[in-house]
């Protein structure tokens, strides 16, 4: 595929978009035509063009989630042509460019599908289930008083690197969307292993994994069956090794923690 190409021809596309007025009303797929789309546009810019057209025609624009449009916030959450964030590997929807598509293509655009992620409107979903999982234990205690000297807390480079890899999770929910079981384990495992690997995370280590897994189950996410769709579709490349770490942390915490409840 070409990069920015001044000779690239504008594209005409057919979009099949999920339209749903609100949480209570059942939605449906609606076909739209968009014309003169530049291959250099991002996917979200293409949707902006669609929405301007809809506004000019006096119709309700398509609601979709987005914020930074730089691939770091994790807000954009479209299921494009049967895959989380579309066909390009390791990319969020905002960083997916129209040059990945061809003139005349039909593109199917759906919201993340999981009962734990209810559709607010059209393509916009409520991912506050993730927030509640973080509130259940995805934090560290910071005591007041003098800050300890950084050199007094030695962390081996490879441990720091692994913790950082896990910390790159942007909480977009692509893992849940791609998983056959709508499981949130890749997300939860990234958060649990990031903190379990570092000294700052040791204080709540056992309680954290117990509470986060309990909250994950309450929210109604499915269980992992090691299919690997999540890691394959993750825009930042969180690995399945984290789920093994989560399981290990969970089992050892359940066996050894003082929490009887």
């Amino acid at each position, binding site marked *: 595929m070409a990069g920015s190409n001044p000779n690239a021809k504008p594209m005409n596309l057919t979009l099949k978009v999920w339209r749903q007025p609100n949480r209570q009303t059942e939605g449906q797929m609606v076909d739209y035509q968009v014309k003169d789309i530049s291959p250099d546009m991002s996917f979200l810019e293409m949707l902006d063009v669609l929405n301007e057209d809809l506004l000019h025609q006096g119709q309700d624009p398509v609601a979709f989630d987005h914020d930074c449009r730089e691939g770091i916030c994790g807000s954009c959450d479209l299921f494009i042509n049967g895959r989380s964030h579309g066909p390009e590997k390791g990319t969020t929807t905002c960083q997916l460019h129209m040059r990945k598509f061809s003139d005349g293509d039909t593109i199917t655009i759906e919201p993340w599908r*999981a009962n734990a992620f209810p559709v607010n409107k059209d393509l916009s979903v409520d991912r506050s289930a993730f927030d509640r999982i973080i509130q259940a234990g995805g934090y560290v205690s910071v005591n007041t008083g003098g800050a300890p000297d950084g050199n007094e807390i030695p962390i081996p480079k490879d441990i720091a690197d692994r913790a950082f890899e896990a910390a790159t999770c942007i909480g977009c929910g692509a893992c849940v969307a791609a998983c056959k079981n*709508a499981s949130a*384990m890749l997300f939860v495992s990234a958060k649990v292993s990031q903190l379990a690997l570092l000294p700052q995370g040791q204080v709540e280590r056992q309680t954290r994994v117990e509470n986060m*897994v309990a909250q994950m189950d309450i929210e109604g996410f499915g*269980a992992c069956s090691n299919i690997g769709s999540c890691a*394959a579709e993750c825009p930042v490349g969180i690995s*399945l090794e984290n789920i*093994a770490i989560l399981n*290990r942390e969970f089992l050892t915490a359940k066996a050894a923690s003082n929490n009887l409840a």
Partner: protein
Amino acid sequence: MNWFTKTFTSSIGRKIIMSLTGLFLCTFLVVHLIGNLQLFKHDDGVAFNTYSHFMGTNPVIRTIEWGLVLGFGFHIYEALMLTMRNKGARSHGYAQWQAKQNSEWTSRNMGILGSIILVFLIVHLYNFFWRARFGTLDADINHNDDLYKVVVTSFHQWWYVVLYVAAQASLGYHLWHGFRSGFQTLGLNHRKYMPLIKNFGYAFAVIVSAGFASMPLYFLFFTNENGALLTSAPAVLHQLALAFN
């Protein structure tokens, strides 16, 4: 709920039971396959019947047998529980779904493969286990039940052989994903050892399923109705004609 039931009814807890029972059932497959290799001995089934007599009467084996029942029971029960949970996690599916772009077919179809194996298991238990344990069989020259004769007769029915081979193919695919998946669920995923576990699992799946499938195929194609080896191509063709009639 106390902490123990909470642990093993959680999503991860159920998965842990799935993997422990699954890996335990793998050890059973090894024992079963090695024992059954005696079917290939040309002794009119004497060794195989002695072995099956031992397996049916030895008190240690009979005790472990209950472990096996529990192993299968929990594996199937947890599979049902997890499948219900997982189906319930997405009641509205996608209009377009390209799972084959990001995952293996076997990993997404463990339930279907497992169900085929379960149907096979019921037929298999009824035909061999039930008859050996509760039925009356002819005696062989050592006055052991002649289970070998039941095996040879069964494996000369083409539909039976088809069921067996199809079930073993399902088992192979089930193990292809299940073996390494069991280790992953138990948290036994390490950069140094995971490639070995994966490759061992693939080899295990192929050897076990091919090993079991070879038995019905051997009897159908290469022996007569008494289990004696056929030596010429016309004899094989004649034998096949009988099996399909």
